[in-house]
Every structure is written in C-alpha cells, then in structure tokens.
C-alpha cells in the first residue's frame, strides 16, 4: 500500500525525534486507529485514552519497529489493540455487556463478510478465502474476539456455550486458518 510507504517514511523521521513528522504520522493514522480502539472498548472517552496512551507508546518505542517483520500500520495497530485490551481487563472496570448480544448476532451470519472479500488488499482476500474454510462457529468466535476484544468467558456467555467448547472452536479455528494461509502464501 502506498499509504504504508508514506507512513514508513514518517516513522523513519520520528526515530530521529522529528516531532513534526510525528504530528503527520498522527494525522495520517489517527482516524483508523481510533476506530480500532473504539470497536474494542466501545466508549469514546475510553477510546480517546487508549489512543493517547498508544501514541505516546509509539513515540517512545518507534526505534524498535522492524520493517522486516510487519507493515508500519500493522505494528501501530498492534500497539493500539494491546492497549485497548489492557484497558478492558482493568480490575474493577464496570461495563454493561448487554450489547455484546447484539454484536454476537451481527457476526452470527455464516458469510465471511462481504467487506473482507471486497477488501482492498491481497492479504484481505487471502484471509477471507481461508475464513471460509472454517466452520461458522470457529469463524464467528475468532472475528468477535479479534475485532471486539471479547474474552473466552464473554464469548461463552453470549453464545450460550460451555467455556471449553468456545476455547476449542478458537484453537481449532486458528490452527486451520494458519494451515490455509500458509498454503495460500506458498502457492
């Protein structure tokens, strides 16, 4: 992606402590990353906190980014996701989880998601193809966990399944996904 090249260049300047480049980096990526945080913590004030913490982390650890390992946006997204997941797992965090039911319904559809198939990148199409190989339950639990930060327990509760069953769906689903994606990458 051309966007990734622009981001990589900005990141290189940030390593040299160029604050103007960091501002540009923020401007380029904040809407996407805010949306990622919002999808997991589902409260605007929390997502703002997560975004703020994440960017301070990104600034402090930008020298550790390795282009050989992942695309810049993937690296930044991982930091935001981790921060958002930590936020959700804070002790004493009160959050109503009634609307998880709605989420679960929304993802219950057996289709791998038309957006993913139409997704811009080749990676997205490869993932969509491989998600199709999973059972509906495997696919649903993986997407809910990744996209919305649902835990094993939350998944079990909202899917009304025993915890062990949900864990097995996820484990087998991930295993199958990896097999499929490695084959498609090799082929």
């Amino acid at each position, binding site marked *: 992606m051309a966007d990734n090249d622009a981001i990589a260049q900005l990141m290189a300047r940030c390593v040299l402590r160029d604050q103007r480049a960091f501002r540009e980096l923020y401007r380029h990526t904040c809407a996407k990353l805010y*949306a990622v945080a919002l999808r997991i913590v589902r409260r605007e004030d929390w997502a703002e906190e997560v975004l*703020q913490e994440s960017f301070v982390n990104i600034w402090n650890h930008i020298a550790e980014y390795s282009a050989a390992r992942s695309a810049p946006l993937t690296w930044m997204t991982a930091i935001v996701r981790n921060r958002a997941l930590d936020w959700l797992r804070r002790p004493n965090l009160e959050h109503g989880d009634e609307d998880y039911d709605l989420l679960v319904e929304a993802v219950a559809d057996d289709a791998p998601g038309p957006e993913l198939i139409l997704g811009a990148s080749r*990676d997205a199409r490869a993932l969509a193809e491989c998600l199709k190989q999973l059972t509906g339950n495997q696919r649903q639990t993986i997407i809910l966990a*990744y996209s919305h930060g649902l835990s094993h327990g939350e998944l079990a509760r909202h899917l009304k399944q025993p915890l062990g069953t949900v864990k097995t769906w996820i484990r087998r689903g991930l295993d199958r996904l990896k097999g499929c994606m490695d084959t498609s990458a090799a082929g």
Partner: protein
Amino acid sequence: MKYTNPQFRDAVSAEYVLGTLQGAARRRFERSLKDDPRLRQLVAQWQNRLAPLDELVEPVQPPARVWRKIEDRIVRAGPRRWLSDMRFWRAASFISAACALLLAVYIVQQPPRAPETMVVVMSGDQGTPAMTVSWPVKPSGKPKLRIRVMGHPDMPPGTSWELWMLPGSDQKPVSLGLIGTAPTQELAIPANLAPMINRATGLAMSQEPAGGSPTGLPTGPVLYKGLCTPI
C-alpha cells in the same frame, strides 16, 4: 513458564494476538517476548495474518484534544521549542544589547556601585516591549516583583497568564505565579525562589488554562519573554 514446545508457542502467540490470552498468562507471555526474538517473530506472523480484519474498520476522526494531550506529553520530554527558537534569541540579544548600552552610559556617569535592581524588558515575537518586571537585588522585607503591562492586552476567557523564571540554559522554567493584565501589579516572589531569582537568565510569560499550568511547566504559547539586566 517456558514456552518450549513449538506447537504450543505458536498457539499461545495466536491467542495473544487474538486477545483471548488474558490476565496473568498474558503478562507472563509479554515478559517472555522481551528476550525471545523468535517468539516475537511468531507474534508478528499472527499479526500479519489477522491484520486484514482491521481493514474493514470505518475510520472515525478522534477529537482534537487527543492530539493536544499527546503533544503535551511528548514535547515536554524534549527541549522547549521557544528556547530553541532563533527569534527568541535574536529579540533577546537585541534587547540585551540595548540595555547594555543604556547601562554603559549609566555607569560612565555614575561612580561604580553594586547593582540595586534587576530589570526584565519582556516582548512578544515582534520584539516590541510589552511588559517590564523589576525587583530589588537586596530586598528589604518580603521580596516582590513589580510588573508593568503595556498596551492593555486582552486575556481570553478561560486562560491565565503565568510568569516563569528561566534559571539557566539547561534548566527547566520555574513558575513564579499567575499575573493579570492590569498596568501595574506586584507579585510576591515565592520564598523558595527568592535566593535564585537574581541568578536567573530571563523571564517568560505563557498563556495557560485558567488557574495555571496543570503540569508545572509551560504548556501554552509563550507570549512575552526577556533577559534579566542588573542596573
């Protein structure tokens, strides 16, 4: 726990990226990541596999305050911008040269003696003097700053003016307190700063949120600044 079994390593990496590895197990895994580059590699592979799921997210513009808070936290860690701003030093050197000239004339006309008063002519970016601050070098009684503000400036609602002492080239500004826009004012010098203020290199005044800087360091724009001159 050691992550030795290759299948187990990969499975745990996957659940870490997915987000379902939680609590103590997640913390433990993160600790192992620090000194296990191969494990970091597995994590990166899973991030790459699942990253397309983030492509679907519809971007949402965060409020502007988020960037301001980030900037606050990263900029403060680095050098203050206005201290490295050439215009500041150019204005400062111009003013100090003018003061030195006045001082030279003064000294020639006077028998030598120790300076009695410190004067700071403070100006904005344009270099026009906007405020003066002076104080006795050896105060009798409680030390006070005498402040004169020129030109009846406006202070936007919800903001405060905060006066800062610049102790030296490498040291951080120290707050002297909040001031107003009145033409003549006095401000008591905080007792802990009284011994250092005669050694200050200059003063600066910044616009801060109402009640002053929340951080103890200038956060808003520096409106006026100037160097200390003993006379």
